[in-house]
């Protein structure tokens, strides 16, 4: 675990607990791998339902990350850089959805955007559209659950990047938007990427809010976790194989990302 550095070896007080943490996180994964009926792995992967669910999961989790980046990054910036009355309140409100159990999050979304919901009813009257039980609803549910993770993590990164460089850019004639794009965001990139990974992972594993708000229809709203849950109710062993498929797919994506974005070099 330790290696030479000009500053010396890592002290046992740090690397021993770190090792405990790694073991704690890895052992259940290993146990899962061991308990997986690998024989059916390929067959399961061939099932149209599984492929549809996997594909839907990848699409919706990607859409969630995009949605988080589009609205969450500006929100994080406002919280980190603009002083306004009620900032503390907004920050608290953003944190609240974090503590909602996912099913409750789904219930809240139904109450807001369901066909008889606070906004859903007027929307339906005006356009005839209803959101629940559509793929859009899956993305909305995921975004609702993942956005707070994204905002909190990115706000932290923006804060620690500091304002000195914003000032330098302003004096050089840059607008706040130009500064944001060319200076603030690139400097906070490691934090933004970390936030994106958190949001993506949260989205990929989300189940409760999705099932409640979007339902569980193969092809349109049945994501991998929903499929896994449905199969689990019937056949726990089969569910493990599916979980392993989701796991491997996400590890693949992560490794791809790591190499491009998350290497220590990219953070420098």
């Amino acid at each position: 675990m330790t290696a030479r550095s000009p500053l010396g070896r890592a002290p046992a007080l740090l690397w021993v607990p770190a090792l405990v943490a790694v073991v704690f996180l890895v052992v259940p994964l290993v146990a899962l791998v061991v308990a997986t009926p690998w024989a059916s792995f390929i067959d399961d992967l061939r099932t149209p339902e599984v492929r549809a669910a996997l594909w839907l999961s990848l699409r919706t989790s990607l859409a969630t990350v995009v949605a988080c980046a589009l609205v969450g990054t500006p929100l994080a910036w406002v919280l980190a850089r603009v002083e306004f009355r009620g900032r503390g309140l907004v920050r608290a409100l953003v944190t609240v959805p974090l503590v909602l159990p996912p099913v409750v999050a789904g219930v809240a979304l139904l109450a807001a955007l369901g066909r008889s919901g606070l906004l859903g009813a007027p929307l339906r009257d005006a356009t005839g559209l209803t959101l629940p039980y559509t793929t859009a609803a899956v993305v909305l549910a995921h975004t609702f659950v993942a956005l707070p993770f994204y905002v909190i993590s990115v706000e932290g990164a923006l804060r620690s990047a500091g304002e000195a460089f914003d000032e330098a850019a302003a004096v050089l004639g840059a607008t706040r938007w130009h500064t944001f794009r060319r200076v603030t965001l690139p400097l906070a990139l490691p934090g933004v990427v970390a936030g994106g990974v958190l949001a993506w992972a949260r989205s990929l594993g989300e189940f409760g809010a999705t099932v409640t708000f979007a339902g569980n229809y193969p092809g349109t709203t049945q994501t991998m976790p929903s499929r896994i849950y449905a199969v689990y109710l019937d056949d726990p062993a089969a569910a493990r194989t599916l979980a392993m498929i989701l796991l491997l797919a996400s590890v693949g994506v992560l490794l791809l990302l790591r190499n491009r974005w998350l290497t220590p070099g990219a953070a420098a």
Partner: protein
Amino acid sequence: MSTPFLHARLDVPGRLHATVTADAGDVVAVVGPNGAGKTTLVRCLAGLLPDSGELTVDGRSWSTPHALPRDRRVGHVVQGRDLFPHLSARENVAFGLRARGVDRRTARARATTELERLGVGALADRRPHQLSGGQAQRVAIARALVTEPRLLLLDEPFTGLDVGVAATLRVELARHLASYDGVVVLVTHDAVDALTLGTRMVVLEDGRVAQTGTPTEVAARPRTDHVARLVGLNLVAAADGAGLLAFRPSAVTLSPTEPSGSARLRWAGQVSQLTPYGDGVRVGVRTSTGQDLIADVTAAAVAELLLQPGTPVWASTKETAVVRYPVDA
């Protein structure tokens, strides 16, 4: 009288209360002890610190309504580093041009030219963390110069530059002064810079302007200890309270007993420090009245008088070597 190019009455509670004016083409050298408010002054001019004052530049008010930093067209080289760490040297320099809408190719070309002018053209592709302190400082100066600002704010710009580069930069500045009619505000702790580059000098002390004037005036008749030390003069209050006396360290004679004769100004004291200085030795003397004087003497004199810290000594100077002037001229 027409309004000056720069008219600033700046007010930051507890840190700065100063009025500074300058005509187009002026180089305002700002000097003063650490913590006097020099950086504060510069940051107010750049629009980075909120102040309650008035600021007019080139006939336009920057204070009512408050002009944003990006609308001020100032160049700013700060004490310490603020190069963008994620951009190469060239991209750092091109930033201000790009922000003002110059197209990428032109911006890069002008940035490269500016870096070459400052002798760091070969380092254009390096990131700031791969540069030495002085190299980084030069890139920062290039970044400020390339946008051709109306107001050029230089907060200790020659800090960490080797002699050759500092000389080059003085030439660069001279070039800039000749070709444009803005104002340069130069914060420095270096007497030579202040005296050779400045057309006006502002002495700050405790957030207030202690003295202004042309560098020659200020150097000849320093009004504070700090300026006197800066220009290498001794400064004492006249015994009759009628003004200030300034005289060169080389005009001070040290003797073991009270001098008689033509040296009419004399002080009893103790040697406080001895430093080699040029061919001779610079001797610090603390007088019995608590005044610090400097005397430049030969090594031979030190040996003869057995000078060392603590030695009692008389310092004296001739009336003819002294400039005498009122406190508030």
